[in-house]
């Protein structure tokens, strides 16, 4: 049996616009804010012509909770738990972004053990986040099995986090001055068991979706985003890397222990939905590599270097720091007036910029592909609205 699969040439030059010989009329469709495929309360206003999408306008604010303003009312450690609720699938990376800017500004010291633990848990959470994305992506494309597979394996990491951190989703773990608790005595054993388990499951993921010709044909050539437009729109993370730009803060501005580990940054070629899918699958393998290199070499030392009740004072001025979460660059801008509470905090969240790429991707395409494109961006709506 032979199957037809799009070639690379066809994906680059192929026409993605739909045309109809019938005379059509433009009309508007309101998608959301209560819609199963918008991953929360995102609202999209679609201008359609028959089945062709002419314009997509995201309408925001349905989960705007004023997190940035709330940050001004507490001290720096009190702000950490609020960013958990922004991008709840990369809660630890969010914690780290705030921690990093406070530590850099207040010139607080850390040690290798703290950095190793932070790097390890962040990479585990990157795997966890991509597993959830993989499952939900499969469900958005119409298959229910990936959802079961993805969330089954995600539970294993949830258990590891629960033992050490005590939470499954909103972690509040990485704090200015260290991490909240030392790792559980079983942590190393559990992570190794998980890696063995997960590596045996990756072929299953591939057999189910990556090597599935229906999935490939469904995703190839739709939702194309060129490297220039991705940069111009401020896209980061897998969305940017799928367009062929090898930008990863873990490589370009290494923080934590990323400079000591060996890993690759997967990049795509065309920037279509398939590339975004492939980049995330490859990132899971790279995260497994990072965890494998670090898990046996956690240095000894203290895990919290300041007194828990200590007031952290940040010198007056403007401070900025950023990390690479599972979705892209999360930057935290901190304006301090020298007191123990921030004067102003602004978060440059990855999802906000990634979301606006949907206009570029979907315009001229078909409405049937819109959900696949939206899901391939992997948005978390509370991170957009904050």
């Amino acid at each position, binding site marked *: 049996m032979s199957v037809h699969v799009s070639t690379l040439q066809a994906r680059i030059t192929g026409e993605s616009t739909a045309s109809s010989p019938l005379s059509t009329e433009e009309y508007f469709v309101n998608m959301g804010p209560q819609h*199963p495929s918008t991953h929360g*309360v995102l609202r999209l206003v679609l201008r359609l012509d028959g089945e062709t999408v002419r314009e997509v306008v995201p309408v925001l604010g349905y989960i705007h909770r004023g997190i940035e303003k*709330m940050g001004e009312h507490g001290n720096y450690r009190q702000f950490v738990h609020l960013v958990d*609720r922004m991008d709840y699938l990369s809660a630890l990376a969010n914690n780290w972004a705030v921690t990093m800017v406070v530590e850099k500004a207040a010139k607080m010291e850390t040690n290798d053990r703290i950095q190793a633990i932070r790097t390890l848990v962040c990479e585990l959470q990157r795997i966890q986040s991509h597993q959830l994305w993989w499952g939900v992506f499969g469900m958005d494309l119409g298959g229910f099995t990936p959802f079961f597979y993805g969330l089954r394996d995600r539970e294993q990491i949830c258990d590891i986090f629960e033992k050490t951190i005590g939470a*499954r989703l909103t972690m509040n773990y990485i704090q200015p001055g260290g991490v909240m608790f030392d790792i559980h005595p079983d942590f190393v054993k559990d992570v190794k068991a998980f890696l063995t388990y997960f590596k045996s499951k990756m072929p299953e993921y591939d057999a189910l979706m990556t090597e599935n010709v229906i999935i490939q044909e469904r995703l190839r050539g739709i939702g194309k985003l060129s490297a220039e437009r991705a940069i111009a729109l401020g896209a980061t993370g897998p969305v940017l890397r799928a367009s062929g730009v090898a930008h990863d803060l873990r490589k370009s501005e290494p923080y934590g222990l990323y400079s000591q580990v060996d890993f690759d940054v997967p990049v795509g070629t065309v920037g279509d939905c398939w590339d975004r899918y492939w980049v995330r699958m490859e990132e899971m393998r790279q995260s497994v590599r990072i965890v494998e290199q670090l898990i046996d070499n956690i240095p000894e030392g203290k895990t919290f270097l300041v007194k828990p009740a200590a007031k952290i004072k940040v010198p007056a001025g403007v401070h900025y720091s950023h990390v690479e979460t599972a979705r892209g660059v999360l930057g935290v801008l901190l304006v301090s007036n020298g007191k123990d509470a921030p004067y102003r905090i602004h978060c440059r969240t990855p999802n906000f910029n990634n979301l606006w790429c949907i206009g570029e991707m979907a315009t001229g395409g078909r409405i049937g592909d819109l959900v696949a494109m939206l899901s391939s961006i992997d948005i978390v709506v509370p991170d957009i609205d904050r």
Partner: protein
Amino acid sequence: MGVITDNLPGVLEPLPGGSVLVTAVDQLINWSRSNSLWPLTFGTSCCAIEMMMATGAARHDMARFGAEVARPSPRQADLLVIAGTIVKRMAPRLRTLYEQMAEPRYVMATGSCAICGGPFMYHSYTTIRGADEIIPVDVYVPGCPPRPEAFFYGLLTLQKMIREGESIRHPGERRRPVLAALPEGMTLDDIRKEMQDLLSHDANVNMTDAAAEGAHYSAELKDF
């Protein structure tokens, strides 16, 4: 169902032994209602992920309680699970969704945000402090986010409430199981008043103080 609930009590009651029959019909209706809850997929933030783990994922399965048929349309659903924060902009939509659901409809508030505003209770200018300010809530499931087990406990409580709480003699009237009592000498109005005082204290800004601080600060910031 409408014919049964509207006309049946009037027909049955006058008959000899009719009251017993009405009670039996009550039990049958409530038993079937409690075991065929169709939830509406309505997740606004973090709790939606734990809801997904509870309803569809591999380890926990809501189908055992007859509640796995998640419906995206409110017209086909009879259980509204509010999973996540409700903000001012979403509140009218939540009310619309509730009103679109057919009777009998049940509401579960999952997570601290849907109960009282949770971590966004203080200093947030948009959060609604609890979904019950907009729609009546039957069961509250605390947690931030609640574990799937907690969610199941809430679901079982709701099923218990449905089985015991309603009679076709008085459709629309529900009896809630008493779960906790208030301390001596304290009424619900006291708590409400204290809450309102706290919130209004937080919401009021002294403009002179704030302006003075801002001016002082902008002078400091000129160097940057």
